[in-house]
């Protein structure tokens, strides 16, 4: 009888175990370190990548509809070289990442699914070395790698469900699918440019960024020094970021835990300074703007 009761108790415990685990994971979801251990590592097929890219291009085109691309081709090339150095070491080898300098007085950077990464001229002008640039780009790469926007919109890969919401949204031929696609793009643009991602996503991108920088040979302190500067400038106003001091403290703890806090790797200060001093070629639009009333605007 005792044996039977014991077996019955174990069965009840096992039946409840998934709920216990779920509850534990739910409580972990507010902690980025724990979250990175339980993060949903979806499986994605090649078709999903294709659809993610179509979606990402649509969002990137929308961002470019609002911001002007810097005409400084040498600087664009330089930023792409730094970004590609990082992406060679990351977990999305199927993507061709594109790094774009956009003109804006707002200190910020954005990324879209599919690998379009934007950094503003104001952000660049507040950087002192290549490691800081690498840190910012790596943070945005982190959002792409973890498919934060895709997950925020609850778009699942083909292998995750019988009917892929991604495929239905992107590949659907019906009018309603088209409307849903446009609305998903609108929502994604809102998240990227206005609302921001979840705090946990930002912190996860921070922690993976410093690791990616260190793996790629860049001093991981670059992101820390840049965020410190921006935090002081913005005083925590940045709507798309968690409060800077909390973010910095979390990041520094992560760097310490992962043995990269004291690493002295490349800053490439001289090369960065030289790249920033490259002259943009004459842009006919700038000449027109000089004679037009209203002057230059951040946004188109």
């Amino acid at each position, binding site marked *: 009888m005792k044996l039977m009761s014991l077996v019955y108790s174990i069965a009840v415990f*096992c039946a409840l*175990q998934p709920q216990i685990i779920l509850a534990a994971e739910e409580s972990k979801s507010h902690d980025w370190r724990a979250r990175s251990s339980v993060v949903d*590592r979806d499986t994605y097929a090649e078709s999903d990548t294709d659809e993610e890219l179509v979606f990402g291009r649509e969002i990137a085109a929308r961002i470019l509809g609002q911001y002007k691309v810097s005409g400084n081709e040498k600087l664009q090339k330089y930023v*792409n070289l730094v970004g590609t150095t990082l992406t060679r070491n990351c*977990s999305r080898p199927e993507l061709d990442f594109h790094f774009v300098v956009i003109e804006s007085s707002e200190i910020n950077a954005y990324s879209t699914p599919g690998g379009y990464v934007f950094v503003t001229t104001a952000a660049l002008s507040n950087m002192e070395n290549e490691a800081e640039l690498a840190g910012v780009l790596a943070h945005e790469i982190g959002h792409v790698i973890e498919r934060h926007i895709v997950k925020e919109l609850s778009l699942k890969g083909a292998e995750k469900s019988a009917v892929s919401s991604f495929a239905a949204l992107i590949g659907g031929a*019906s009018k309603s699918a088209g*409307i849903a696609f446009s609305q998903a793009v609108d929502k994604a643009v809102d998240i990227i440019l206005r609302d921001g991602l979840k705090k946990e996503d930002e912190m996860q991108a921070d922690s993976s960024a410093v690791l*990616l920088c260190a793996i790629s040979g860049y001093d991981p302190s670059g992101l820390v020094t840049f965020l410190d500067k921006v935090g002081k400038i913005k005083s925590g106003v940045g709507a798309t970021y968690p409060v800077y001091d909390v973010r910095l403290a979390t990041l520094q703890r*992560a760097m310490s835990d992962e043995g990269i806090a004291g690493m002295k790797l490349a800053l*490439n200060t001289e090369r960065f300074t030289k790249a920033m001093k490259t002259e943009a070629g004459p842009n006919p639009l700038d000449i027109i703007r000089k004679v037009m009333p209203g002057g230059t605007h951040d946004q188109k």
Partner: protein
Amino acid sequence: MTMRRFLLALTLCSTLFAATAYSDESLYVQPFRAKIYSKPSLASEVLGQVDSGFKFVSTGREGNWVKLVVKGKQGFIPAVQTAINPPLGKSAAQGAESAPKLGARARTATTAVVAGMKGLTYEDRARVTKDELSDFEALDKIDALKISPDELKAFQLEGGKR
């Protein structure tokens, strides 16, 4: 408790144990090369290097690191370098970029085709969006900027300075 209930409980117990006790997952190294470290720290000893596509069974995660057993020793690989699926080819990702590069005048037609593929006319699509402009011509220029392996190699050799 009847024997039937006992057997039912026993079956339930063993099934649930089997489903919950083992959570290891197969992972693949994604970039062209990744190092295996002795601890979840870049400052720790490097146990070896593996190439893209290397498959391993992860025995767990520790922050941004995945655990594995290599030659009888516990090792760690940065999670940012692994994924649950084998490295995907670029062919799929480039499919969406393979549209012919057209001039600005042809852009409206291209956009109409893309919109049409989604079951919408250009006008429909403009109506359902928030009247925000898109600039596909700028996007085409961005796509056209490519970094060659030689350029990247030279850039990396030139760097590494403080």
